[in-house]
């Protein structure tokens, strides 16, 4: 069974600064996908960024980038130039190549961006 661990229950950052959220996972699968989802107070889960395990290059989406360390089974999210609208719960998620898209989530990290 796969597990996803987010060890930071809460994080805070000043507007315009950079913050990194941590995530580790455990799996025996060789082909899998990793995701970061954002859940604002509205409850709407929004995909922030995804990484295919077979790709060595770290994914980047505008101000969001990941540090994917496959051997260490680590998948951290870096948010640059933090904005007030980034305040939300962030979930790291995993799905295996044979799991039909079924997502396993970490416990979540509450990120607060202060003005």
């Amino acid at each position: 069974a796969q597990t996803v661990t987010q060890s930071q229950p809460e994080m805070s950052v000043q507007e315009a600064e950079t913050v990194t959220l941590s995530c580790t996972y455990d799996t025996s699968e060789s082909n899998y996908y990793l995701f970061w989802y954002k859940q604002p107070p509205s409850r709407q889960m929004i995909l922030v960024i995804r990484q295919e395990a077979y790709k060595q290059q770290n994914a980047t989406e505008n101000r969001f980038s990941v540090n994917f360390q496959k051997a260490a089974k680590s998948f951290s999210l870096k948010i640059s130039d933090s904005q007030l609208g980034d305040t939300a719960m962030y979930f790291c998620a995993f799905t295996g190549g044979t799991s039909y898209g079924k997502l396993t989530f970490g416990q979540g990290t509450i990120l607060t961006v202060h003005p």
Partner: protein
Amino acid sequence: GAGVSQSPSNKVTEKGKDVELRCDPISGHTALYWYRQSLGQGLEFLIYFQGNSAPDKSGLPSDRFSAERTGGSVSTLTIQRTQQEDSAVYLCASSLRAAGAYEQYFGPGTRLTVT
């Protein structure tokens, strides 16, 4: 186009009553997933559909929980004889195909409160 919709947005019910939660996926999406978000258990997978079939029901907590999907579209999650531990936010997601390569789009969720 329209996103994933869920109804009702909030539901308060008395212990022992049955409830039905509805999910309308994005048109053309063949895969549909149900997840539950609770304080004690975090975000957990319940069941997924490929078309009208449910190949993986492994996350349903008990036989009081059931789900169906008709016409490859709308899905209903039914909880019979509700218990207080069923209180949670129930999230629905849909994707083009049931595979990790395809992004899951989430609905806003139904907050269920059992009194």
